């Protein structure tokens, strides 16, 4: 062990012992209390997690039923560390534990209460030597391949123009900068999950990143996991079974961009899309949009070409229709024209006939004209004679009527009662009525007697 570290530990122990002493003075532990106390002292190592390197010893005990395994780590000095691991921890290593295999275990020490034995609780076990690492890698790769983790048909399709991107990489690293620079400005929205990318602890971060994105940001269109190049050993997180399984189960497609020279990492094999560097990851995404820009312009062009073609087609169809209609109209017109000609000629014939009729009538009129005029002349003479006769008769009749009238007048004058008065007759009236009998008179009646030259009033004195 490092001398300076050893001295520092020594000083710390002394300081710590001083603080501990009052607590321990006169104290007697039960066995159980004591083991708990020792485990308490070891707790800082549990919180920090310790990594121990060694060779797997001869005695390996795996209890498949109960799901755990016991093995020993030994070193050249003959030191021995009993290790207790759950079977899934052994399984994650990717290879079966064999004596002589050089490994690194991370976990914490504790005293097993029931056995009273000091033991190392293993959280993760991984190979150390490059040769073994390669071997582990090949075995794990083969197994995962057989289990279908790398099947091309199981890969998810990345949206054609991804916009909302999750990023898992080391914060402030060159990888992050390279990725962002090559993204270019296409309106990406990048949500980053800072992660360690080297060593065993990177596995936890990467797995947690994928989990967080899937759980809380399912609308992400892709997750980019990227880091710059490094040694084979430094890229072990990307060859871990845990990362492979998490990537495989992610609902969001995953793009791997791990810088490496030769072999692909297992992440590359399981990812839905792989590129070789952070720069390429940025380029991969920005190129989709570059292509999009081009495609939009092409689409616009092809749409206008298509509509242009359509317009020409329609124009052609219109012209065809126009020809067709014109021909039809012309034919109709010609037919009507013929009909009209026919009608016209029949009309002309009729008019001609009428004119002829008129001419013949006129001839007849001319022929009979003289006769008619003569007739008219003769008749007028007759009328004149008749008129004269009428006038003569009128004068004669007038004279006769006059004479008759004066005769009648004379006769009338003779019978006039007034004339009788002059001859001595009188007219007697009572109350305006002419009296014709004495019986109409009574004593005292007032009577009027009209004579030729006046009226005398008298009263009846005596009634006989």
């Amino acid at each position: 062990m490092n001398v300076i570290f050893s001295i520092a530990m020594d000083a710390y122990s002394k300081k710590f012992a001083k603080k501990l002493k009052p607590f321990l003075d006169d104290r007697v532990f039960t066995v159980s209390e004591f083991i708990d106390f020792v485990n308490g002292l070891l707790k800082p190592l549990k919180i920090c997690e310790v990594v121990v390197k060694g060779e797997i010893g001869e005695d390996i005990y795996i209890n498949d039923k109960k799901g755990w395994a016991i093995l020993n780590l030994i070193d050249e000095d003959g030191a021995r560390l009993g290790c207790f691991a759950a079977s899934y921890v052994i399984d994650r290593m990717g290879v079966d534990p064999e004596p002589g295999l050089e490994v690194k275990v991370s976990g914490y020490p504790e005293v097993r209460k029931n056995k009273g034995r000091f033991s190392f609780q293993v959280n993760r076990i991984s190979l150390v030597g490059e040769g073994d690492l390669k071997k582990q890698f090949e075995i794990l790769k083969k197994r995962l391949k057989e289990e279908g983790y790398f099947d091309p048909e199981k890969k998810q399709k990345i949206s054609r123009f991804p916009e909302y991107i999750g990023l898992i990489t080391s914060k402030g690293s060159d990888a992050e900068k390279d990725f962002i620079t090559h993204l270019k400005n296409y309106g990406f929205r990048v949500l980053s999950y800072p992660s360690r990318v080297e060593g065993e602890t990177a596995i936890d971060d990467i797995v947690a990143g994928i989990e967080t994105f899937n759980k809380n940001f399912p609308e992400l269109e892709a997750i980019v996991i990227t880091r710059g190049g490094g040694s084979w050993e430094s890229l072990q997180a990307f060859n871990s079974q845990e990362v492979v399984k998490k990537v495989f189960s992610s609902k969001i497609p995953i793009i791997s961009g791990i810088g490496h020279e030769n072999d692909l990492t297992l992440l590359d094999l399981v990812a839905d899309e792989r590129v070789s560097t952070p720069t390429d990851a940025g380029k991969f995404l920005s190129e989709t949009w570059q292509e999009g820009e081009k495609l939009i312009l092409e689409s616009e062009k092809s749409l206008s070409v298509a509509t242009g073609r359509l317009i020409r087609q329609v124009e052609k169809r219109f012209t065809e229709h126009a020809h067709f209609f014109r021909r039809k109209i012309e034919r109709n017109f010609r037919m009507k024209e013929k009909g009209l000609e026919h009608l016209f000629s029949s009309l002309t014939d009729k008019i001609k006939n009428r004119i002829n009729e008129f001419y013949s009538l006129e001839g007849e009129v001319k022929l009979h004209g003289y006769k008619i005029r003569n007739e008219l002349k003769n008749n007028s003479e007759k009328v004149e004679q008749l008129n004269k006769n009428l006038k003569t008769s009128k004068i004669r009749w007038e004279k006769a009527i006059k004479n008759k009238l004066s005769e009648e007048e004379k006769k009338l004058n003779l019978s006039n009662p007034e004339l009788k008065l002059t001859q001595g007759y009188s007219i007697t009236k009572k109350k305006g009525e002419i009296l014709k009998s004495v019986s109409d008179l009574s004593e005292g009646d007032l009577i009027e007697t009209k004579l030729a030259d006046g009226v005398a009033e008298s009263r009846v004195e005596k009634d006989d």
Partner: protein
Amino acid sequence: MTKKDFDFTKAYEEIEEINEWFQKEEIDLEEALSKYERGMELIEKCKERLKKSKNKFEEIKEKYEASEEEDSS
């Protein structure tokens, strides 16, 4: 950062469909007119989206906060 305001991929796919439709032999004029208008509208929107090109960055600060919230509920 939540949902997208405009889905470029979806819009482009619709533009592609429209362009394909126009390759048909027999085209209905009414439909062609509305497809053309829709296509041009989408193209304009896509162009508009391409103009808004500044990238936005956000970081998840509290690593396990979201999942812890989820667990406690």
